[in-house]
């Protein structure tokens, strides 16, 4: 039952805000709907933890430990982002960059975007998964171009076209999957249900499935931002409003990777080889390396952290590609840590750029003097994402790298070099932003930094101690991924 609430609330919120989003309190309504979604997701999670995997609505929705974990994460980050966007978007409006009409569009699309991602996570049907992924893209296209600047329009266009092309590949992959499934399961709606497919995965035609996986990986991988299909990602993150950068980075990439993982489980079963894993490792490693070296050249702070997202998603993809219990566990943990940390960083960056009036790192200096809280949160977030202990990212990266040393030693030098380069360049660029000399004026508003500290607190906590039930839960999810 909870599942209908989880999906219904964002949808209702989207409709409501589309119709009455002109009101002054629209940001609060947005946050309220997000809170309700979070509560529903929490109820759903509690139920799954208590009862194990469930199927709802004639098998149309399927929730197990793997996706409920992402549902909870999505709902949580969506809520905190809504909290952050409340003062942030107000300030943007006061600066004259937005008006009521666009804010209405923003709020309605935000809810629909969250709803589409939740649908993608909970649906059991690989076709609907595709439809909702595309829906999530469409909901954000107009958000990326919200400021209507030439650069933001260009970014949105790139986002639409590249993701559109990518997602078309994924559709072809889905067609091939259906084609293979239909021969085993018979035609009709049930042949695309993941649970059905999972039951007969050994009988699926290997040639077709391997081809299907290539298309699915390329298609959804475009949305994950895997190199060399990552071109849209930095632009969309840099030119859209900061809350959107936060949810794109923290959530959409996860959901796309979730789609890849669901396909991988099927393909592994059908092929009995490591083809899917090897492909993912290759793409993942390439993304880590490419992103790390591109970070060095960035001048725009949001772009830089967007590349950092590519790097981390590459790392997660690599971990899932290795497979096995430990690596999958590490991958899931890293996914969580990255979502929380990266969205926290974008919150801090959002306020920093607002006060500096520019996204160029050369223009942002001495945050620690003008806005100590923003400065500290940016510094802490950066330190966390770079994998400095005791933050959780360290734990997950450590696990991934030790597993890689053990199972694929050839990959470790690449990973370590890339992480080192990323560390040096990000730290070197953030340090003057926080501690440098400045004459910037103070922001007239109190920044909303509670979400930042909540996120970073969680990351710190999980770095020091993972509660046993949470660890169990991760372990279950990792087992589902073929651990």
């Amino acid at each position, binding site marked *: 039952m909870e599942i209908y609430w989880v999906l219904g609330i964002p949808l209702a919120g989207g409709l409501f805000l589309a119709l009455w989003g002109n009101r002054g309190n629209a940001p609060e309504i947005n946050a309220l709907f997000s809170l309700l979604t979070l509560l529903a997701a929490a109820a759903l999670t509690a139920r799954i933890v208590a009862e194990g995997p469930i199927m709802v609505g004639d098998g149309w929705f399927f929730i197990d430990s793997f996706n409920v974990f992402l549902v909870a994460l999505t709902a949580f980050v969506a809520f905190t982002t809504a909290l952050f966007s409340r003062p942030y978007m107000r300030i943007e409006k006061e600066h004259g960059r937005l008006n009521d009409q666009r804010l209405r569009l923003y709020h309605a699309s935000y809810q629909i975007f969250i709803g589409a991602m939740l649908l993608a996570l909970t649906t059991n049907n690989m076709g609907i998964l595709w439809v909702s992924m595309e829906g999530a893209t*469409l909901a954000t296209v107009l958000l990326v171009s919200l400021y209507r600047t*030439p650069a933001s*329009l260009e970014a949105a*266009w790139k986002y639409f076209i590249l993701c559109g092309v990518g997602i078309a590949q994924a559709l072809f992959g889905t067609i091939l999957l259906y084609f293979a499934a239909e021969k085993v399961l018979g035609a009709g709606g049930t042949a695309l249900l993941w649970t059905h497919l999972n039951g007969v995965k050994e009988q699926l035609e290997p040639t077709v499935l391997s081809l299907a996986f290539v298309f699915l990986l390329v298609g959804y991988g475009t949305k994950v931002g895997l190199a060399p299909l990552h071109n849209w990602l930095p632009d969309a993150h840099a030119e859209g409003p900061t809350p959107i950068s936060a949810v794109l980075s923290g959530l959409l990439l996860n959901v796309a990777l979730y789609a890849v993982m669901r396909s991988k489980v099927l393909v592994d079963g059908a092929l009995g080889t490591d083809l899917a894993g090897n492909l993912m490792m290759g793409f993942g490693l390439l993304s880590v390396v490419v992103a790390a070296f591109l970070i060095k050249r960035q001048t725009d702070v949001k772009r830089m952290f967007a590349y950092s997202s590519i790097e981390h998603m590459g790392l997660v993809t690599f971990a899932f590609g290795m497979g096995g219990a430990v690596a999958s566990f590490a991958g899931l943990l890293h996914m969580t840590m990255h979502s929380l940390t990266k969205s926290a960083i974008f919150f801090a960056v959002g306020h920093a750029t607002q006060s500096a009036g520019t996204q160029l790192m050369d223009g942002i200096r001495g945050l620690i003097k003008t806005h100590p809280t923003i400065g500290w949160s940016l510094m802490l977030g950066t330190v966390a994402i770079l994998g400095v202990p005791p933050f959780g990212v360290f734990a997950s990266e450590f696990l991934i790298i030790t597993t890689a040393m053990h199972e694929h030693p050839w990959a470790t030098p690449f990973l370590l070099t890339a992480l080192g380069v990323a560390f040096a360049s990000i730290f070197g660029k953030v340090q003057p932003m926080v501690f440098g000399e400045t004459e910037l004026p103070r922001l007239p508003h109190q920044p909303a930094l509670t979400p930042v500290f909540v996120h970073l607190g969680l990351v710190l906590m999980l770095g020091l101690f993972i509660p046993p039930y949470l660890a169990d839960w991760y372990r279950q999810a990792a087992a589902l991924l073929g651990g």
Partner: protein
Amino acid sequence: MALSYTLQVVNLLAALLLLIAFAMLSQRRIAGLVTLFAWQGGALAASTAIVAWSTGQHHLYYSAVLTVVLKVVAMPWYFFRLIKRLDVDREVEPMINIPTTMLIGIVLVIFAFNLALPISQMAGTVTRSTLGIAMASVLLAFLMMITRSKAIPQVIGFLAMENGLFFAATSASYGMPLVVEMGVALDVLVGVFVLGIFFFQIRETFDSLDLKHMEKLKER
């Protein structure tokens, strides 16, 4: 050749689809491109309907009707209106000259045929041989997208790609489950309208729909 006439007609329509995909590659005017797109939708709908009729797969009729409504009537109409309102029916200006594009196209067709051969041998459907054609039209549409610099041709390329994918679904496995097809159609529709809004934004900001103006965001 033991195929029945209906299936031969499907084959013919498949060939027509491919022919139109090539015609799109060589088309220089945007209005012509839209017309060709409508024709392609027509061929797709006709072949879907014939497959539905000859195999008794009734849900394919819905898909055919959907195609006619969306891709033959609604979208071309909308595009023509856009072209008129934005006043953009000039030459399309490919980034690579057209004969080269066509040559690349032929190579893509050969590639697609080779790729589809092992799969189509496995397919149980009577229309399986058209799978290669579907793949070829997807790749050709893709080629069109990457060689055109104007916004509307790129989108038409995108939609033509969708056409090819639908055709692939029909020929490989008598279409997807109806829910999925409806969902896909909805996405496409929403996408086109989002883009419609988008065109006006681009136009307002750049005074043109030429994407050559959009080259600021390059990796430095």
